[in-house]
């Protein structure tokens, strides 16, 4: 912090004149920024790994050790390839990503939850040539669709720019000890049943949903509710920034109103806006809360804390027997367009999806589906474990074609700039579901509509 200013003397007028002059000079200067997007390195596509020593850099977020394990294993199998992993917080990483990619020494691989403008500015490598070379058409198209982007900046189709180190699935974890106490013997099959169970819990003095919104995680609940009412493709086209797609459709409003109803009924913790991710997982692990909405990545921790007294299942649909819809996304990474090691880093990405040890690592460390060819054998999991549940859920969602991306990834700034603050108001009954949806739509328009 700076300190101290003395009294002003005259001569301030001199300064003002200088200021005016320089301002004029600055304004007449040329516009900032460059016109042409940076060109991708022209490299001949090869699916063979070089035997020369190679040093690859990965920019990843803190708290995700899976990249460490994967790169360790890869170096074991191919000793000539070593990795340096730079970690930063999710916030800093998303804020710095475009700058990192545009610098003269970009990381070869970078964790990128949202493509944003990186495709338009030519910062990320187009993986289509590798798609053909490696034969990735055997992989589920729906899994790769969110990782594509057209030249106009619309996701869902176009060239492939990302791959996932694991593909996650979200759902509901249920504390079965508490459930047994309340007379609930099976996971709810419809939203109505879920609400009944929550009402039972509330009446008995048990916290129905353990959730937190200090850093936005309650949006697992908000979106889960919306998922059951929206037209999935319509929702996806909004998330993919297709022109004309809107967030304030009736399904989204219904979902948000449902969450508001739950907030009014007191189903959330009273201090929900003070609870961050760590707190909300540790409190559920300590036995607080009948349900918690979270993803497969936490399965191992919950299992450790609650043993066999916890179940994991997909969010039930609104109507009995309908298909399930669940959020899931690739733990998406992109290759820098200017990377000098395109072949090597893509080889690594392919290896992650196809090598049995790599796939096992992904399942063991994150509980996510390893992606890749569905015909390939799935890694082994402990029977009856939450991770086994998670893989089954992934498979079910794949079969029912019910996967949607996280709405937080819709644009670069929408999560921190709009969804988190507005959801904080929603779950404490400060705004209605309609207001929530309208405000997020407005922010979306201001970010996308240039």
């Amino acid at each position, binding site marked *: 912090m700076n300190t101290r200013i003395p009294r*002003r003397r005259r001569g301030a007028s001199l300064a003002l004149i200088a200021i005016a002059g320089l301002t004029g000079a600055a*304004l007449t200067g040329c516009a900032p*920024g460059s*016109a042409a997007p940076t060109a991708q390195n022209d490299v001949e596509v090869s699916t063979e790994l070089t035997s020369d020593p190679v040093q690859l850099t990965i920019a990843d977020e803190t708290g995700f050790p899976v990249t460490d394990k994967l790169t360790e294993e890869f170096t074991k199998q191919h000793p000539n390839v070593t990795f340096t992993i730079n970690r930063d917080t999710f916030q800093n990483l998303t*804020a710095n990503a*475009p700058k990192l990619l545009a610098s003269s020494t970009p990381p070869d691989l970078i964790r990128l939850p949202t493509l944003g403008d990186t495709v338009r*500015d030519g910062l990320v490598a187009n993986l289509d040539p590798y798609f053909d070379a490696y034969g990735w058409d055997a992989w589920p198209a729906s899994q790769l669709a969110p990782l594509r982007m057209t030249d106009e900046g619309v996701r869902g189709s176009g060239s492939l720019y990302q791959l996932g180190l694991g593909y996650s699935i979200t759902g509901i974890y249920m504390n079965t000890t508490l459930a047994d106490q309340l007379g609930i013997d099976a996971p709810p099959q419809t939203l109505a049943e879920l609400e009944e169970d929550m009402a039972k819990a509330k009446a008995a003095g048990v916290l129905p949903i353990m959730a937190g919104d200090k850093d936005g995680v309650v949006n697992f609940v908000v979106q889960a509710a919306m998922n059951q009412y929206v037209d999935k493709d319509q929702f996806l086209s909004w998330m993919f920034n297709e022109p004309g797609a809107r967030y304030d459709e009736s399904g989204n409003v219904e979902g948000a109103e449902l969450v508001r109803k739950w907030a009014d009924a007191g189903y959330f913790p009273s201090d929900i*806006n003070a609870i961050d991710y760590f707190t909300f997982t540790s409190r559920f692990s300590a036995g607080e809360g009948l349900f918690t909405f979270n993803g497969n990545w936490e399965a191992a921790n919950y299992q450790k804390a609650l043993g066999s007294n916890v179940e994991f299942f997909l969010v039930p649909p609104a109507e009995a027997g309908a298909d399930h819809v669940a959020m899931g996304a690739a733990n998406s990474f992109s290759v820098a367009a200017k990377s000098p090691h395109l072949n090597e880093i893509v080889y690594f990405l392919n290896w992650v999806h196809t090598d049995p040890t790599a796939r096992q690592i992904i399942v063991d460390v994150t509980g996510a589906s390893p992606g890749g060819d569905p015909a390939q054998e799935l890694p082994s999991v402990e029977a009856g474990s939450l991770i086994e549940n998670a893989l089954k859920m992934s498979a079910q969602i794949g079969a029912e074609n019910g996967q949607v991306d996280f709405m937080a990834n819709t644009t670069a*700034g929408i999560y921190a*700039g709009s969804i988190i603050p507005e959801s904080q108001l929603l779950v404490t009954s400060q705004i209605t579901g309609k207001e929530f949806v309208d405000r997020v739509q407005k922010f979306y328009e201001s970010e996308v509509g240039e």
Partner: protein
Amino acid sequence: MTDRAVAVAAAPRPDDAPSATATAPVRRAAARAAARRATLAGWVLLLPALAFYIGFVVWPLFQGVQYSFYDWNGIGVARWVGVENYLTVFTDPDLLGAIRNAFILIAFFTFIPVGLGLVLATLIRGIRYKAFAATAQTVLFLPQIIPLAAAGIAWSWMYAQTGAVNQILGWVGLGWITRPWLADYGTALPAVGLIGSWVLTGLCTVLLLTGLGKIDVSLYEAIRLDGAGWWREFFTITLPGLRQEIAVLVTVTVIAALSSFDIIYTSTQGGPGRATLVPGLSIFRIGFTQSDVGLASAFGIVLMVLVLIVVLPIQRLSRASDS
């Protein structure tokens, strides 16, 4: 202190400096030559400081002004938009809310520390035990040594539902008002403000203490003989004597309030909702997460102008009171 400033203003310039031995005309010529050399030397000496300052502060400032007139994402083509970004700053309710919050913080970053500082400085002054006074000074100054980011983290934890603040409230029988202070819409901003009070009170205390040291003790003796109590003494002697220091402190703390970032970034991130959103955090988010460089730059310039608007009158007031 006032007389020292006057003395500085009236200080003889090198031209007039008499030399003891030479005759008058030779003296003047020699003095003028020396003055020219001194001025030239002076400018050379000023060069490094000016170079760094202009190069890395003033020039970027003007570049910021330039960016503010464009719509630019930092990497691609920039589009001229004139004053549109500034209009957004003054019409977007979220951004205006951030400015409002920054001004509210002034109550906590300025009024409380300066007020408390006055009280504490007066108290320390009256203490006989020098060791106790010195220790108190050191302890009170500690928050200035700690990175603001760490202060944000320390206090976040204290304000938590199971943190120290609620615990202590429980001990003194006020358990019924416990709550997660940083998550409650009504208390989040004041809670953050109090972090600032904690950080700045020590600085104010120490500075005011020195100021107190310069006030003539005989003035106090005289007024005591008159039978005046603590109050009168404070308002007729202490406060006026501390005018300079108070002006400096108010300036410094107001700047800290309006440009706060570290504390909020590590404690509430602007939440809940936008209750603790401040311009510093908003600029960071708009500029780096949303990549809207033009709007962020415009907001930054607006912030700077606000600081000047608040600080310049304070300086003028303090100067006027000298004469």
